[in-house]
């Protein structure tokens, strides 16, 4: 890496001397991208977010002045829903946003609005839960194995829900469930959980114009914005949902539902949100992008510092009406390491939200590939694709190279130690084979098609939805 840098610098100095008169302005921006922190191209920025606890890195970077330290003047604006947020980034109203890990991928492959979105920062791991209404829980409970303490044994598999879904189907009633966006982590986690229990969550058929995702489904999944989930379930429109916090704990708090599983139990330490920017913006503002990532890394580190010692303060900030706005007690649960399932059944889940530990902020290619495999599994990617296609898309959208530049600047400035980051010399961007899934199926990011073959429910190989 060092050798490469010095060759580039020599080359640049030579070309600068030769063409300085004519190309001075253009060359300047090129040199500053490879040298010490360059001039910020756009100090006044506007970022969008959705009211979920995992927008915390943005809030902390603002409130703790990490953005200002980098010379950035950021306005944070809550968005109405994920579609408005994505449109905002695409049309330039927002410079960047708190995004679902699947959104940059979905946009790049053209599922939904087509646009080139990239990400250089993963905002957090875990943080979601699946909640069902009280009536459904009462019907599920007899099917859930009980422990010696009289409490349900966790993780609860969707097999406990299967008889309920079958009975609804027999009566001719559609079994509706909610998730937040067609390419959201919640959609894929809910589908994964349902399929692992033998319930078919439905296929997409974009090549036939059907993007409802409900073909051949036992459970019908539809989109609801996160803050409206509890009220939609209360109204009876949906029987359960998969959403990020605080909307699962909100349901318990208000006595309208029971969270049955967290995504930590579906896939331990799964990637959740990313900080997405449009590719054009990143190319026009490389130094600004690096500065933003630096501030966010520091914010994520602060959130996990000293074994989550700063979390109560973070909850205080998030409960302000301009950020998440939910009550302190509701947000505090998951952020401080506990999770309430049934009312009164509080269990310790210290890694419910992970912001920095386990290299949570590094944008791994294997994470991108997992989302792509799930998009293929459920038909959002209508045709079979070779492994190389998955790799190409992942490398296009996830940018650990920008992350590395930001991390190195932080290490040089002494703000964070090198030990806090992966070894950039040896990191390939692919995590070793992961096995901690609820159904025990092993995931190797370098073999997406082989991975898909292992699932009983879902498209695989050359299959196309008819």
């Amino acid at each position, binding site marked *: 890496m060092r050798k490469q840098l010095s060759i580039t610098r020599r080359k640049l100095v030579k070309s600068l001397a030769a063409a300085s008169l004519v190309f001075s302005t253009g060359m300047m921006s090129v040199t500053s991208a490879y040298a010490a922190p360059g001039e910020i191209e756009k*100090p*006044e920025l506007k970022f969008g977010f959705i*009211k979920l606890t995992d927008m915390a890195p943005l809030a902390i970077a*603002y409130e703790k*002045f990490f953005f*200002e330290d980098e010379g950035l*003047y*950021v*306005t*944070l*604006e*809550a*968005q*109405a829903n994920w579609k*408005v947020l994505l449109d905002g980034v695409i*049309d330039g*109203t927002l410079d960047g946003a708190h995004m679902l890990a699947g959104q940059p991928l979905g946009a790049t492959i053209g599922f939904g609005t087509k646009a080139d979105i990239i990400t250089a920062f993963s905002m957090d791991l875990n943080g979601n839960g699946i909640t069902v209404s009280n009536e459904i829980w009462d019907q599920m409970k007899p099917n859930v194995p009980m422990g010696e303490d009289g409490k349900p044994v966790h993780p609860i598999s969707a097999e406990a829900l299967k008889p309920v879904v079958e009975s609804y189907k027999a009566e001719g009633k559609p079994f509706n469930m909610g998730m937040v966006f067609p390419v959201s982590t919640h959609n894929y986690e809910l589908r994964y959980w349902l399929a692992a229990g033998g319930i078919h969550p439905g296929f997409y058929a974009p090549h036939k114009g059907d993007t409802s995702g409900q073909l051949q489904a036992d459970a019908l999944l539809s989109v609801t*914005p996160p*803050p*409206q989930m*509890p*009220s939609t379930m*209360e109204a009876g429109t949906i029987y359960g949902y998969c959403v990020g916090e605080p909307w699962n704990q*909100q349901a318990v708090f*208000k*006595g*309208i539902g029971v969270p049955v599983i967290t995504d930590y139990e579906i896939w331990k330490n799964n990637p959740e949100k990313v900080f997405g920017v449009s590719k054009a913006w990143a190319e026009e503002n490389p130094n600004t992008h690096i500065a933003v990532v630096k501030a966010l890394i520091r914010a994520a580190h602060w959130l996990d510092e000293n074994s989550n010692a700063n979390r109560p303060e973070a909850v205080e900030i998030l*409960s302000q*009406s*301009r950020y*998440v*706005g*939910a*009550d302190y007690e*509701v947000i505090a649960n998951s952020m401080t390491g506990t999770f309430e399932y049934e009312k009164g059944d509080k269990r310790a889940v210290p890694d419910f939200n992970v912001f920095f530990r386990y290299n949570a902020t590094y944008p791994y290619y294997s994470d991108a590939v997992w989302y792509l495999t799930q998009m293929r599994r459920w038909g959002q990617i209508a045709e079979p694709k070779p492994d190389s296609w998955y790799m190409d898309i992942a490398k296009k959208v996830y940018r650990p190279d920008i992350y590395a530049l930001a991390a190195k600047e932080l290490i040089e400035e002494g703000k964070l130690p090198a030990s806090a980051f992966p070894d950039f010399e040896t990191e390939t961007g692919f995590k070793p084979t992961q096995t901690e899934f609820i159904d025990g199926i092993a995931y190797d990011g370098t073999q997406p098609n082989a991975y898909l073959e292992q699932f009983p429910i879902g498209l695989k190989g050359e299959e196309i939805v008819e």
Partner: protein
Amino acid sequence: MKDKLIYFLELTGFTWFIPLIRLSAGESPKHQMQELGKMVGVPLFAIAVFLFLWHLGAAKVITSLGQVPGPTQVWEQVNVLVDEHYEARDREQAFYERQEQRNAAKLEKNPDAEVTIRPYTGKETFFDQILTSLFTVFIGFLIATLIAVPVGIVAGLSDTLYSALNPLIQVFKPVSPLAWLPIVTMVVSALYVTDNPMFEKSFITSALTVTLCSLWPTLINTAVGVSSIDKDLINVARVLRLNYFTTVWKVVIPASIPMIFTGLRISLGIGWMVLIAAEMLAQNPGLGKFVWDEFQNGSSSSLSRIMVAVLTIGIIGFILDRITLSFQKFFSYDKNAVIR
């Protein structure tokens, strides 16, 4: 002097002060006290009864967001909102102080360095949002008036034009703002593309939606008002061989002012209602967005805060109506007409 004061009070709608003035001038005290009782006492009593019933009724209804807020909770939240406003101002000050410090440090190192002061990045407070809403509705209403009044006058004077426009007006009049909004959003996104926009897209979208919904009452009322002015007045203009513009300016408009202003009042009322809905969806940072954000927050104080917004919207609507009423009274030529 007294009469001038009374005239001014009548004009501005503060009619309940009139008995007080007459009292201080010593005019028939018993009669004035009766007037005072009627004008002030009765409404105040009705408001008190309403607050009491609200207080009782609210305690009985328990929703998943807690008890429906009664007057006490709403008043609490008013205080909280005022406190939040001052807190935000403190934060703003601290923000600028930090910038000054940073700039000072920069200048110390390099006296020739360029320093700028960036505008505050924090979220607007409730009171800022009220101002934004007022500004948006004003712009929307202004555009609507500028379109509706001239078109209405011409349509009122010409029967052919009126029959041409009538079906269009009748079809577009009942359309809800929420139905216009997606179209307006798409059009604004496509057409309003500049590098340094003076106005936010959400502002333009909200203002245009207000225009689209509030121009119909003014248009219809102006057209009807103009077409129903005394034919003698038009004949006089013809006898005097006044040209079209003089006729309109000197004869038509003064004669139809009552109807035009009635239309304006209705339009402003509708515009203010439409604005709140438009802001909720277009996310213009005004009162509509405040209500939407509070609903999204779902905290235990959310309902109370939404109630505060509801009352604020109502009170502001009332004030806007009064202002238009005062203007109407001022411009009206028939001072004896009872205008409420």
